[in-house]
């Protein structure tokens, strides 16, 4: 009875959100509501494609990392034959987690409870005293392997999984957004690699705030990140994203910073990198647009940017991926990776990592203030009045039309100070919550 009442309360909130969203508004309550959270776990995290790991985190056979889709824990392992497997971390006998380390290398996962052992393919390999204790038909080894994630696929080394057996293919899901991922993944034939391991930390905030901030909140930078402009870590002016661009395509969206006219095509990238891109990508660079922040629905965000350590030193670029893992209506575990071209030199990798730590991650000078915003919004949203308070997501609806001559796919707008991408994100969220996607 109680569960039904909760689901009903969640449905009422979704309906209110949809009704108000037609007018560019959303009830603040969607950022902190237990009933809505339970629905999100089923309808969003139970169905969408979720990023788990980068293939370079498990380069050798037997390498594994533990990763989550919300409450479901998976072993992401490269098996003895080199195939990446995504296996539910729970013994098929009585459910104990068979893997307790966050990473490592192993040929077998052995359950500490009764000793059932699984190959790193997931196949059940050994059951102590099997012959003495199981009669015929009581234990079918063939069907007693670790449960694979219903779906798992990779794109450019980015490993995703979905709990929905009937999900579209990953490529279909990402849609035209893969065209924009090229900007980040295609700069070197060697591809990207993860530097070390992800930072993890807890933020008492709703997961949607991280996703929405990264997909399309260019506007917050001039206030939230003013301190970093003042000390020169970010090259100013403070409203550096005002005249950028914002694009929605497929399951994602991203924002561009407009560089000074003299920054040159590809923002100073050497010719051999520029030559790897087609004319349309190059045209975007030529117009001065540098791809920066973005999100793939629901909870994978990324950022390509640069920090300046001293006024007499050039900006040092970095690239970060992050997952906003929902752990409660008002809490996320942030997983933040730093990646770099695999063939970069060691000094370049080190400098890029240090630049990343200065600006993003658990101690990052920009991320510190982002998490402050999101915890504050979440705290206010836990109240009763937050059901009635409608938050404004209208920016850009009247003043901006999609650019007709944008060289890439999707819908593009000629400012990063618009909420077009956030509206696209919440529209997708609503469609999942209404079971229409």
């Amino acid at each position: 009875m109680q569960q039904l009442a909760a689901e009903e309360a969640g449905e009422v909130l979704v309906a209110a959100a949809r009704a108000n969203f037609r007018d560019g508004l959303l009830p603040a309550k969607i950022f902190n509501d237990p009933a809505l959270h339970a629905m999100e776990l089923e309808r969003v995290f139970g169905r969408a494609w979720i990023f788990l790991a980068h293939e370079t985190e498990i380069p050798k056979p037997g390498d594994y990392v533990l990763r989550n889709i919300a409450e479901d824990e998976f072993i992401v392992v490269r098996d003895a034959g080199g195939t990446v497997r995504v296996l539910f971390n729970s013994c098929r006998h009585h459910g104990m987690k068979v893997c307790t380390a966050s990473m490592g290398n192993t040929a077998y996962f052995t359950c500490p409870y009764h000793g059932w052992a699984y190959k790193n393919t997931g196949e059940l390999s050994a059951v102590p005293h099997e012959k003495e204790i199981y009669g015929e038909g009581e234990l079918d080894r063939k069907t007693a392997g670790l449960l694979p994630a219903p779906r798992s696929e990779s794109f450019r080394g980015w490993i995703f999984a979905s709990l929905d057996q009937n999900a579209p293919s990953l490529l279909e899901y990402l849609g035209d957004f893969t065209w924009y991922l090229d900007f980040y993944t295609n700069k070197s034939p060697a591809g990207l690699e993860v530097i070390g391991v992800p930072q993890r930390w807890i933020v008492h905030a709703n997961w949607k705030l991280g996703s929405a901030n990264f997909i399309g909140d260019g506007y917050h930078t001039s206030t939230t990140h003013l301190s970093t402009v003042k000390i020169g870590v970010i090259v100013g002016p403070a409203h550096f994203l005002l005249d950028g661009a914002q694009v929605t395509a497929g399951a994602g969206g991203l924002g561009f910073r407009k560089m000074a006219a003299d920054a040159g095509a590809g923002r100073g990238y050497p010719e051999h990198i520029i030559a790897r891109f087609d004319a349309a990508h190059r045209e975007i660079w030529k117009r001065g647009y540098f791809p920066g922040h973005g999100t793939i629905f629901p909870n994978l965000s990324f950022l390509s940017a640069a920090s300046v350590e001293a006024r007499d030193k050039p900006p040092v670029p970095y690239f970060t991926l992050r997952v906003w893992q929902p752990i409660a209506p008002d809490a996320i575990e942030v997983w933040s990776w730093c990646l770099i071209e695999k063939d970069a030199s060691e000094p370049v990798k080190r400098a890029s990592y240090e630049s990343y730590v200065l600006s993003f991650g658990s101690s990052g000078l920009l991320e510190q203030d982002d998490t402050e915003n999101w915890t504050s919004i979440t705290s206010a949203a836990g109240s009763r009045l937050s059901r009635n308070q409608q938050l404004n997501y209208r920016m850009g609806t009247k003043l901006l039309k999609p650019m007709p001559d944008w060289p890439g796919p999707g819908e593009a707008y000629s400012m990063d100070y618009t909420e077009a991408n956030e509206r696209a994100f919440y529209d997708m969220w609503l469609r999942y919550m209404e079971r229409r996607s």
Partner: protein
Amino acid sequence: MSAATDQRPTDRPTAVPVDEGTRRLVRDFLLLEAELLDDRRFRDWLDLLAPDINYRMPVRVTRTKGGSAEFSSDSYHFIENRQRLGLRVERLETGAAWAEEPPSRTRHFVSNIRVSVGASAGEVQAKSNLLLYRTRGNAPTHDLLSAERHDLLRLGEDGWKLARRTILLDQATVTTHNLSVFL
């Protein structure tokens, strides 16, 4: 790049204890440092750092072996030199560092101080335990961070300076929403 190392950067196989006078001075140094941080006298804190300071907090990962193998040699929550620590302090003075406006209330509890001779003359190694208590605003809750710190202190013309600090956090997942404080 390898994911982890079996070495704790400032570990030495055999720790040779220092004389009682030096031990007291190092203890006083660490307690003064804690006081400066809790009093938010960050400029004075910077004065305690050597120009070539190496200030790090490696990411900890749960591994079957445990112990020092848990610390990444490639990934850090802090990987700072003097210049970047200076930037972090400068930011706090802008009036726009929202993570510290209003400021965190911190209390650095420093204990279990163990001092041994360093590799060079005029250098000592100090291990200490740190419990950092942090509250913000009127929240009824607090954050606690527990760590062991491995320090290298150097005696120069103007007294002891912190030349290296490695912060070994007792958590794989950090339970504070940002590290806008120093450990």
